[in-house]
């Protein structure tokens, strides 16, 4: 099963996005585990992820996260997609990156 990790300052606002992404994943029958964590727990929670998505507000941590989780694709979410909580769009992009 694919594992997707979302990171923001406290893992709170990204958890809204997690719900929206899960809704879409369920609707197309894609089985995956999506979780939100605080960005400073990346080394513990995101090392074995298939993909890491950063909330745009913590995008400056990108380099540090890449160092902590080598080999995992890391991307910052688009600000507008994030604000409008477009789970479907973000999930589609994730599927493009990690493959079905």
């Amino acid at each position, binding site marked *: 099963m694919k594992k997707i990790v979302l990171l923001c300052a406290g893992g709170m*606002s990204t958890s809204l996005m997690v719900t929206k992404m899960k809704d879409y994943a369920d609707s197309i029958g894609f089985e995956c585990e999506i979780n939100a964590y605080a960005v400073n727990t990346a080394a513990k929670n995101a090392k074995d992820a298939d993909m890491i998505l950063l909330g745009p507000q913590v995008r400056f941590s990108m380099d540090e996260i890449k160092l902590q989780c080598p080999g995992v694709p890391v991307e910052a979410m688009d600000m507008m997609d994030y604000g*409008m909580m477009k789970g479907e769009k973000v999930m589609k992009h994730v599927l493009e990156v990690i493959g079905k």
Partner: protein
Amino acid sequence: MQDLMNKLTTMLEKHLVPVMNKMANNRYFGAIRDSLIATMGLTIIGSLCLLIATFPFPQSYVEFIAANPELQSILMIPFNLSVSIISVYVAFGIGYYLSESYNLNKLVGGITALFTFLIMAGGINSSYLGAEGMFTAIIAAIFNVEVTRFCVAKNIAIKMPKAVPANIAGGFTALIPCTLSTLMTIVLIYFIGFDVNSILATVLTPIITLAGDSIFTALIYVILATLMWFAGLHPQVLASLLTPAWTIMSVANMNAYAAGMPATHIFVKPFFFTFVFIGGQCGTLALNFIMLKSKSKTHRDLAKLALPAGLFNINEPMLFGLPIVLNPTLIIPALIGQVTTVLTTWLAFASGIVPPMVNPEAALWNLPAPIAAAISTFSWQAVVLLFVNMLIQGLLYIPFYRIVEKDMVAKETAEIETN
């Protein structure tokens, strides 16, 4: 305008944030902050007990508590063993996290740091185990870990044969450094008579609380935080720099209140997170309510999406969805609203119109603001202040929001026509 925005964003992202991150990631600062965060559960339990034991209304409840002093003293046990001796936990935490950052044995580091602190503070009945002893705890823990690190680096340790299990060998490794730091502390404090506690409590604590408990710090903090949001960057780093001062002041207020003395610190954490960041930073809750009746469908949908989280002060949908981020129109009322409500809140507390925040730790940042306002001050005046602040923020947003709304409605109409 676009150019200026880009410049500001680049300036913040390339220059300010790395410097701030470097400060926040400083080894000592990080250990102090993490250990304060680790004690949060305890201070919250303590503050809840204080809340129950001293809740000022209704009158029948006050009389019931007054008639049952044993019950009240039982309720205060968790408070006395958490908030009143907070530095004990902080000393352990700093020893633990600092040792971890040096790759030393962290449990041994925590225990020996606590031991060094108790010696420095003058024993388990010392009056320096609470907020007054916070700096003693910090100094004791850092001193202890640094002595250990020195001994390890210079290979000064009792060496166990390889066959001895690592756990046991770890305990022995700590023996010499711990003896050294104990000896130095005892000589310094008990033989030479250097009163480290009162020096730290009378010199360092006032400096930090003065710096933290100031209207200038408050204004700089909210202005920088708002500008960082404008650039789309989470200003958590600013809050983490202020966390030590907030904790020391909160604990001091709670102890003063429990002892029947006036609580004097104004700029504790809920000052910002309850009274200024209403609905989240940039104070977006009032605007969120206004947008429920927007002429733009996009904005109405966004408002509905954002409101449930906004009530708990999480507002990324508003900040990134409306957006306020990189929006030169909306950043103006956001900034003016934040600065104005810092001033009104300061005036309300400084003049005594609103009773002081005697129980700030109970006001968690993600509690709905009216509840947090009431339980941090035990007063209805604070709730009134909160709604006044919300009204100010809402009124400031309205004219600027109308501009954004008009643009969005035009866009929506254009889209319908092309379809």
